[in-house]
């Protein structure tokens, strides 16, 4: 069941926003609305977020991503459309019921942390529980647990002003986690942090998520961040959802020029995985095949070395053409002793890591060490270089 379902959501700012929606439905342009003093926040957005999914909403500033996020817990009331949380339409809730939903279901993390400067780290982390009127002892205990989760146990008594930005945002995260919400809303949560700290926080969030399996909606303007974090990515432009898809899909099949232009700038080596650039691996089976079979297969495909695997498809190593030929001359029937180790990577290894390996080809294996393919140097370079070329997007569209 979807944790969140958004149906035909509109948010228009200005006097008489309903009229704005009508105009949009009649096909009027953004400019035409602006002339009437109406600004589009979100335009006909429909979206499902599955329970336990990490969804990243990405777009430039003014694309409506933060407005969309705030419509999910009605910090901004949608002009029309519906937002279902576990089947309940929150756009119809009374103020009291809405507060209850915000209190129990959501944890929110803000770009500039939004911590209370006059309260200690522990008191800040306990803020949501305090609003729920949880008794003080229980409140402190749970807040302390949340602080431990984000690695801030020793700082409970400090004031936020005494902490670095990264640590302050950990407090913000602890405050959201302390209420044990089903859904985490994160609004540009790491955008105000230094790049290195940011990287740490991203890794840590992924670590936490692998244990917690919360439903996370994460807003960012940074595609690298979106690709790293998101199970799926929603790309927004001018209040509209342009594309929804897994990171690979966004990269390889951008829905339009807008997305393609984004994708161009991505550091592809961090995003594309071995699986995306690997070739089919020719291989022989040990101990069934001997030097003759190996040489024959190499000649057939036109390569100078071949992967060796066992009967269960598990990678054993590589045999070079020279070694096989020498064995054949010496009338050796078996490949024993000729198999050399070969560097191997997993299917999901990013290209950036493969680059560090000096010896090619590199074998690609799955979690059971079964041989799935191989990466040759040429293919790796082509993937990296191809992406930088401006024609890349067009090529990809043709391919798709």
């Amino acid at each position, binding site marked *: 069941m979807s944790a969140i379902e958004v149906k035909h959501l509109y948010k228009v700012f200005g006097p008489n926003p309903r009229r704005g929606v009508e105009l949009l439905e009649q096909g009027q342009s953004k400019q035409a609305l602006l002339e009437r003093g109406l600004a589009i926040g979100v335009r006909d957005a429909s979206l499902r977020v599955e329970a336990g999914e990490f969804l990243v909403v990405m777009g430039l500033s003014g694309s409506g991503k933060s407005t969309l996020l705030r419509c999910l817990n009605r910090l901004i009331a949608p002009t029309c459309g519906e937002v279902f949380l576990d089947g309940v339409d929150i756009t119809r809730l009374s103020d009291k019921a809405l507060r209850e939903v*915000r209190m129990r279901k959501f944890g929110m993390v803000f770009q500039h942390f939004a911590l209370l400067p*006059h309260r200690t780290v522990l008191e800040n982390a306990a803020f949501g529980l305090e609003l729920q009127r949880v008794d003080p002892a229980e409140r402190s205990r749970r807040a302390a647990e949340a602080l431990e989760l984000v690695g801030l146990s020793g700082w409970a008594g400090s004031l*936020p002003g005494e902490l670095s930005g990264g640590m302050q945002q950990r407090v913000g995260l602890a405050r959201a986690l302390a209420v044990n919400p089903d859904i985490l809303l994160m609004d540009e949560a790491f955008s105000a942090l230094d790049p290195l700290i940011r990287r740490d926080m991203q890794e840590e969030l992924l670590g936490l998520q692998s244990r917690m399996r919360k439903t996370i909606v994460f807003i960012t303007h940074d595609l690298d961040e979106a690709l790293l974090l998101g199970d799926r990515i929603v790309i927004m432009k001018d209040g509209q959802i342009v594309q929804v898809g897994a990171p690979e899909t966004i990269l390889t099949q951008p829905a339009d020029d807008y997305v393609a232009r984004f994708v161009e700038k991505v550091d592809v080596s961090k995003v594309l995985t071995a699986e995306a650039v690997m070739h089919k691996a020719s291989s022989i089976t040990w101990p069934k095949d001997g030097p003759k079979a190996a040489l024959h297969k190499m000649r057939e495909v036109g390569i100078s070395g071949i992967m060796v695997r066992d009967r269960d498809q598990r990678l054993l190593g590589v045999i070079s053409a020279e070694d096989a030929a020498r064995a054949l001359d010496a009338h050796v029937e078996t490949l024993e002793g000729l198999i050399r180790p070969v560097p191997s990577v997993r299917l999901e290894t990013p290209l950036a890591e493969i680059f560090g390996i000096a010896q090619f080809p590199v074998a690609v294996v799955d979690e059971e060490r079964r041989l799935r393919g191989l990466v040759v140097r040429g293919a790796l370079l082509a993937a990296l270089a191809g992406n930088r070329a401006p024609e890349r997007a067009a090529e990809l569209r043709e391919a798709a």
Partner: protein
Amino acid sequence: MSIPAIPLARGVEAAIEYLTLHFAFLTKALSRLVETGVDALVDAMLWLPPWLFIAALSGLAWKLAGRRIAVFAAAGLLLVWNLGLWAPMVSTLALVLIATLVAVSIGMPLGVLAAVFPGVKRVVAPALDFMQTMPAFVYLIPAIPFFGLGPVSAIVSTVIFAMPPATRLTYLGIEQTPAELVEAADAFGATRAQKLFKIQLPLARPTIMAGVNQTIMLSLSMVVIAAMIGAKGLGGEVWKAIQRFEPGKGFEAGVGVVIVAIILDRITQAVARKSPAAQTR
């Protein structure tokens, strides 16, 4: 052709006359009650030997505002005592304290209401402008028919004159709470009361304290002016000096006012700075 003047003065007088006729018995009774209270407070403060009073006030200044202010307070008050202005100073201080207390306890809640309800603010804001810009002396005149000559009329007109900053800076402080913090409170399901007491008021405290400081200063200046309608104290000394043309005596009383003003100002400012929200900004 001459345009007849709008009878504003006659209208106001008629209104005051009407109100006096029907409500003066109430306000006069209230006045007698308050006057007894004021007298009791002044008597209590005068019952303390001046040296003990000075020591206590300096000690308080030390604790709240540091050594320099404490030393100044001691020296200043000793000078006042030496000039023979002790009793008038105490009576001025009592009037200021009472007027401030009343002004703040009306003004601050009014400020909170104005911040929470836009409708209240639409009424209150222009009323405050009116109260502050109307020349202070004007309040003195109608106070007399209601409260008679004496300290209570002085307190009433002082409260009207000194209340606006307490109200204005309260709603300003609340409105200036960072939007992201208010949003965070909303996101975690805060009620309006929780937002007010857990976020807005604590964060507005330095601003509100600045308002209280302003109210005290305005009270002091008004209490001196109110000597014209029978408030005694340092203002009374100044008034006497004017009538008898004694510039020296007038100057002495004026210095007394300045000393009291500086002591009150520095102590309240220090209290405002000490609030926790101010420290982390």
